[in-house]
């Protein structure tokens, strides 16, 4: 029995096809094999069918989609033929799952302890055993020192890395032979994503679990994966061990070695090229600061809370931005990044200090001459406005242009951000993520701002698109001599585009902590 299991692969997918009810194919996966203890990464952009594969493996695919093929797992002949009651015995016990966003995957109304105990007890452990299980997992994840605090905390009271570790502890609770992870590090900042992936890797190795890991972060994949599948638009492009699929290009660049093997698939090479690098020549070179465009002097922002007390969001913040300069503002969530951005665009009032734009005090009401591009291109466009309507609205109401001028300007604005002006009459849902973000940039530039705040503006985009949008931003900067304030928690992106990186912590600017330097 044991030997048979060792010889046969743990998970074997054969000819898995997922289609919509209108028979439109979403995914075709001819073959995918995961052996016991193996780490298999699935890489691909959004819409490539990565997440569908995982949902299908844990039996959570929506009933509106039809799936055919065969997934054999351990002694189970075909997972697709299982009843819901059989799934309940399997999930958590034999297959664990880690989701992308731990904030939404954990129940905000229950303490982490309650949720951990629930997942421990649901497969038959009593109170005592559950406690031991949780203790064991916390030990493995390096959380044992703060175990009591985490158990009694609600999800929002923990940091992103801690939340994701709680999710991992839940998924690994019963030492399942297979763990599924859906972009487990995408929602984390540069420092914790490596640490969390490290912990997940060690835990899998320790308990001998196989990991099927969906990711688009190639640098992490190159470090941890044993074998890789590459998906694009529902088709399998390449599959094999790490050497075969991505070569040692990534290992080579990080250690200053000349690569020996290269990816055999062009698309993978493209993905590797799109990775943000320390010195890519992406940012404007030889930048000489001229006049100071935006001056922030001793900026203080306090929020009034109940009974007359206040919370300091920003204390004594000083910052100078020059025309044509890009400054990356790095900081963890809650460090005051969004408050600062809101003050600059005129949505929050200043408690004390001064903000000067071109020597003049910043306008108290929007528009202030500072614009903003947001992280999520899906929620930063009005679903009921076409590109033309959105642009015309800004040109006529903010720019006070006549309708005829606004029509011409709208055409120009789209072309300037690299979109065809045939897209003028498309609705946001008809555009891809990259196209939407370009439209958002066009909208922001339509008011001729002198400073543009980019709030994680490329974080939600696929790597290749991300690189294209960054290139566009750099080109626009050259043409318009505009200043960028790039708010991000991704240090790689920050390093690739910014002339200067500032670190915001507890409402004050400081030096980058040592942990960030190693990223």
């Amino acid at each position, binding site marked *: 029995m044991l030997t048979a299991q060792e010889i046969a692969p743990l998970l074997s997918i054969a000819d898995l096809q997922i289609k919509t009810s209108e028979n439109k194919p979403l995914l075709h996966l001819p073959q995918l094999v995961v052996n016991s203890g193996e780490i298999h990464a699935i890489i691909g952009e959004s819409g490539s069918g990565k997440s569908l594969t995982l949902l299908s493996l844990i039996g959570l695919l*929506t009933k*509106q989609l039809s799936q055919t093929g065969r997934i054999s797992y351990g002694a189970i002949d075909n997972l697709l033929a299982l009843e819901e009651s059989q799934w309940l015995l399997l999930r958590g016990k034999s297959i664990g799952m880690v989701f992308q966003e731990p904030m939404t995957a954990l129940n905000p109304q229950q303490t982490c302890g309650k949720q951990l105990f629930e997942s421990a007890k649901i497969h038959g452990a009593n109170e005592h055993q559950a406690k031991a299980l949780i203790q064991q997992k916390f030990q493995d994840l390096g959380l044992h020192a703060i175990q009591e605090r985490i158990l009694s905390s609600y999800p929002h009271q923990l940091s992103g890395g801690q939340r994701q570790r709680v999710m991992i502890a839940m998924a690994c609770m019963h030492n399942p032979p297979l763990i599924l992870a859906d972009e487990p590090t995408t929602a984390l900042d540069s420092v914790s994503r490596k640490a969390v992936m490290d912990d997940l890797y060690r835990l899998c190795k320790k308990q001998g679990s196989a990991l099927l890991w969906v990711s688009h972060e190639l640098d992490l994949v190159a470090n941890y994966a044993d074998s890789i599948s590459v998906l694009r638009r529902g088709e399998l492009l390449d599959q094999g061990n790490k050497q075969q699929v991505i070569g040692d290009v990534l290992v080579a660049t990080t250690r200053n070695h000349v690569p020996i093997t290269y990816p055999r698939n062009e698309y993978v090479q493209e993905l590797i090229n799109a990775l943000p690098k320390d010195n890519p020549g992406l940012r404007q070179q030889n930048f000489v600061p001229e006049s100071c465009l935006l001056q922030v002097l001793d900026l203080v922002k306090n929020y009034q809370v109940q009974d007359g007390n206040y919370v300091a969001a920003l204390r004594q913040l000083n910052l100078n931005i020059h025309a044509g300069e890009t400054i990356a503002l790095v900081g963890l969530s809650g460090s005051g990044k969004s408050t600062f951005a809101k003050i600059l*665009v*005129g*949505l929050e009032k200043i408690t004390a200090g001064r903000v000067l734009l071109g020597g003049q005090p910043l306008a108290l*009401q*929007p*528009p202030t001459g500072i*614009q*903003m591009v*947001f*992280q*999520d291109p899906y*929620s*930063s*466009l*009005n*679903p*009921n*406005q076409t590109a033309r309507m959105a642009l015309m*609205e*800004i040109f006529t*109401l*903010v720019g006070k242009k006549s309708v005829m001028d606004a029509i011409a300007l709208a055409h120009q604005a789209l072309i300037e951000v690299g979109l065809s002006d045939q897209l003028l009459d498309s609705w946001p849902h008809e555009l891809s993520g990259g196209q939407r973000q370009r439209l*958002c940039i066009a*909208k*922001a530039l339509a*008011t001729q701002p002198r400073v543009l705040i980019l709030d994680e503006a490329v974080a939600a985009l696929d790597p290749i698109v991300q690189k294209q949008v960054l290139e566009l931003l750099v080109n626009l900067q050259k043409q318009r001599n505009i200043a960028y304030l790039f708010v991000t928690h991704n240090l790689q992106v920050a390093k690739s585009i910014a002339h200067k990186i500032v670190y915001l912590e507890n409402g004050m600017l400081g030096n980058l902590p040592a942990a960030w330097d190693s990223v």
Partner: protein
Amino acid sequence: MLQALRKSKLFLIGFSICGILSIVAILGYSIAPDNSSNANRIVQEWKNLPPGTCKLYIEAASQTKSTHVSAWQIWLTGNPNPIKIKPIGEGDKHHSADNRNPTTSNIQSIRFWLGTDQFGRDVLSRMIIGSRVSLTIGFIAMISSLLLGVFIGLISGYYGGRTDKFLSWLIAVFWSVPTLLIAMGLSLFLPKGLYQVMVATALSTWVEVARVVRGQTLQFKEREFIMAAKINGFSSWRIMLIHILPNTKGSLTVLATTNFAAAILLEAGLGFLGLGVSPPTPTWGMMVKENMGYLVLDNAYMALIPGFAIMLLVMGFNLMSMGLRDLMDTKSN
């Protein structure tokens, strides 16, 4: 959207029922056999005739001066001086010939497809004119509840804080007052009639609209496109009406059809209790009430006909709303 609606059977059935009844209501007096105002031609001799009865009559000369009534006016309010009818019984032909010396061509026949009521009025005509009352009240109550609800919901959700607290309290208060109480209260200082019923229905149905719009506004105002609009310095009204309101049109459409149905039911209920439109204006609710006594007798159909009509119309609107809701659900998935 229209493509998907065409495929939805529920919506199509509901839409056809409401469509046909609306056409009947719009044509109104133009197709009613008895086109006198309020279909109120009382003929004592023809009480409680069963459906399908055919009767003969002579058109009597009108006492008042016959003024010309335009077709437009007849369509709108009915004929103010309808023809006078002198009914003739089975063996009456000779008598009447003696009396006034009419030619046989003066004798005309009339068929009562749905019979007559206790005053000898044509039930079919009263049903047709009654559909006008139901649909008018439903429509106006729906529109005014939407206007009021959208206005209050938007302001409450968008401004938040004390405004929201006050308006939410107002919503809760109206939510708790029974509609019948509002109608009775209104009848103290409004003349009993169409307006009173409309105001009462609108006052009790706007609450749900306001709650839904408030919820959706709260949800949408956190979205980044609203923040982008604020950064551009757009006015609050522009953000509410151009950027938030169109995004609620899905749930508003569903709510509008449901409210239409609720308003019709409410009007029927008020009419049945005698709190509604005053006689002789025919309304379906009042017709059920007038004929309720016959339910235990042979001619129970007299109460059942208007009852069935109410059911059909409300069902039509509910089917439409179900079809729309299914469509919205799949869209959100």
